[in-house]
């Protein structure tokens, strides 16, 4: 056959494909089984959250954030609330802080369990899926006990949380958390030292620390390369500066290290929850000054003195402009990475602009780099290992 007759096989993976975790579409150019080029196409789940939020009050925006990363909606809510609280300068009560931390870590465990389940399923280990679902179910039922919803919770409020938690909940949670490290042990016996698992994950999808920073990775994919960056430690929010935990780091930045990092992270989450239950203070769960933004919201009252500035050009209007549009950025460590909310406010009841810095979006961008030159099966392993949720990526 002449050279010009050789063509690459173009395979359209997705948007409907069992291993793309939603509606990610990858166009793969294959040479045999080797991926020559990989082009991700996103946007199939674009709902215009950023645009919609410009037309909703701050309180109405909250349920929208549930729909971003639907596997850990609690952390999305917390991120949004933190941003709004920062904007308005609300101090939330200590009890609410602890409850948020506790709930956030529960959500992290839930999300990591789903990740482990689907990741293992992608690589072919089916049994782990049902083991993790058993434990996730327990946590979801606990969510339901407090919130009434299992997945899209909308539990945190601007200024605290919606309702208090009771003894029964804490009791059940404590019993679960006591036992949880054993459960992680169970998953690890299934795959941790399995030769097939090791062969599939070690040395595959490697990314170095410099590249990871350059590509803007956050969360476990960044930490697997050995870079110490965790929003919870760097810019502590809620009660994270009052609990002890470690940030697990990897070394090689391959799929196996990402897996290891997340497994350790679950253990640390269990530790945080335990401390939260032990240290849980009494008091209010919703700040008193949070009532300023009741629905339908009244205009915000931000003290203009808090906005400090220096202007170097001769323009009278600029001062007015700066005072009219204060802006904040608040980020949380979501299970996927750094989830940030950037809000520009115009002192009305609605955000002038709400920007969601979605970790999944950044992580999908790095997929071609991870996949090109490897085999088709590694594409699947890579998608699983960076743990994406398309709802968050497309917004």
């Amino acid at each position, binding site marked *: 056959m002449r050279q010009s007759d050789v063509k690459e096989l173009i395979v359209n993976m997705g948007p409907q494909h069992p291993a793309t975790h939603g509606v990610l579409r990858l166009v793969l150019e294959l040479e045999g089984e080797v991926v020559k080029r990989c082009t991700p196409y996103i946007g199939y789940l674009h709902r215009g959250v950023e645009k919609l939020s410009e037309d909703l009050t701050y309180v109405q925006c909250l349920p929208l954030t549930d729909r971003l990363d639907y596997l850990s909606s609690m952390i999305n809510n917390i991120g949004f609330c933190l941003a709004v609280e920062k904007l308005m300068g609300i101090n939330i009560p200590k009890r609410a802080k602890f409850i948020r931390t506790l709930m956030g870590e529960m959500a992290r465990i839930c999300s990591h369990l789903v990740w482990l389940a689907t990741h293992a399923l992608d690589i*072919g280990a089916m049994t782990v899926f049902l083991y993790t679902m*058993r434990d996730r179910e327990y946590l979801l039922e606990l969510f339901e006990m407090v919130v009434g919803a299992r997945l899209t919770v909308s539990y945190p409020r601007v200024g605290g949380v919606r309702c208090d938690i009771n003894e029964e909940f804490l009791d059940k949670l404590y019993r679960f958390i006591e036992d949880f490290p054993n459960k992680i042990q169970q998953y690890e016996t299934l795959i941790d030292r399995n030769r097939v698992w090791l062969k599939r994950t070690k040395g595959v999808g490697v990314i170095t620390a410099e590249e990871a920073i350059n590509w803007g990775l956050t969360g476990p994919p960044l930490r697997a390369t050995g870079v110490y960056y965790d929003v919870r430690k760097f810019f502590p929010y809620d009660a994270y500066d009052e609990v002890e935990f470690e940030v697990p780091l990897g070394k090689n930045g391959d799929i196996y290290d990402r897996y290891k990092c997340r497994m350790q992270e679950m253990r640390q989450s269990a530790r945080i929850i335990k401390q939260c239950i032990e240290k849980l203070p009494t008091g209010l769960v919703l700040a008193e000054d949070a009532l300023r933004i009741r629905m339908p919201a009244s205009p915000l009252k931000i003290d203009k003195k808090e906005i400090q500035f220096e202007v170097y050009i001769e323009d009278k209007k600029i001062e007015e402009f700066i005072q009219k549009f204060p802006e904040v950025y608040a980020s949380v460590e979501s299970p996927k990475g750094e989830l940030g909310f950037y809000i520009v406010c115009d002192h009305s009841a609605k955000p002038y602009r709400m920007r969601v810095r979605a970790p999944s979006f950044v992580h999908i961008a790095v997929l071609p780099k991870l996949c090109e030159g490897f085999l088709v*099966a590694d594409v699947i392993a890579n998608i699983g290992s960076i743990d994406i949720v398309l709802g968050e990526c497309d917004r």
Partner: protein
Amino acid sequence: MDTVYLIFITTVKTAVYFGILLLHVAYATYTERKVIGHIQLRLGPMIVGPHGILQPIADIVKLLFKEDIIPAKADKFIFKLAPFVSLSAALSTFAVIPVNKNWVISDINVGLLYVLGIAGLGTYGVIFSGWASNSKYAFLGSLRSTAQMISYEVALGLSLVGVVLMAESFNLSEIVNRQNEYWYGMFLFPQIIGYFVFVVSMLAETNRLPFDLPEAETELVAGYFVEYSGIRFSLFYLAEYLAMFCMSSLAAICFWGGWSIPPILVKTFPFLSIIPGVVWFLLKVYFHIFLFFWLRGTLPRYRYDQLMAIGWKILIPLALINIVITSLLKIL
């Protein structure tokens, strides 16, 4: 007159044999779901009949009545032909497999070669389906499957050479009889390397985990039969399970002494000889079937290049070493 009688009796035998075989296959699916279910902390089918015992029947009825979808761009003739090629290849192998003393449809002298040859024909069904579906996933799946089956057939064949050397025959009944001449009654012990190679290649030949690349759900959706539905889909499924049974029977016959009970066991426990040979045979077959299910419940999937490396770099050399050792022992 003799010829007519022979034809008649063979037809009846075949019908009975295959009827029972297909029932076994149907319930193998049920067993698989139950076994995997219990491995995975769930119960498996529970609705149709007590403990879901009628589930396979319900499945068959459902698959029969499903709409038969043929893709518009498919090569229709080959598309329809493919499942039958797979199925008939899988079914034909059972013609020479003895389940008990003289319980065999055709006791030919090259039984082992026949089984390997016909089982190899099944690959055509896979290639046909992958090509005719006109879908890239199916095509990739069939390519993978072909490469995999061809390379593992080598290992499979080589692993059985040791057995043939020891039995000095290709006839499957003869192989069983020969094993009975030794006190341990199984080639499993002298041929342990061969058995290991055989089991691994058996998993690869039947496209089961950890070597189920051709139908890897998460990579190629369902591999070569992704475009098939209804009854045609079920024919592929049937062929896969028949291949499992075929390989398990082969393992039982060549390494575990078929229907015979090791003489040492009969000597120590004389009551064992009451057990009919067929029960003993089925026990051995179902042990291997269980092995298939068990591995599916526990192992992840290999990658394509790793699978090939295992086949060519580990299994074939091992099988060759086994042949050398066996021949040396034979000479000595």
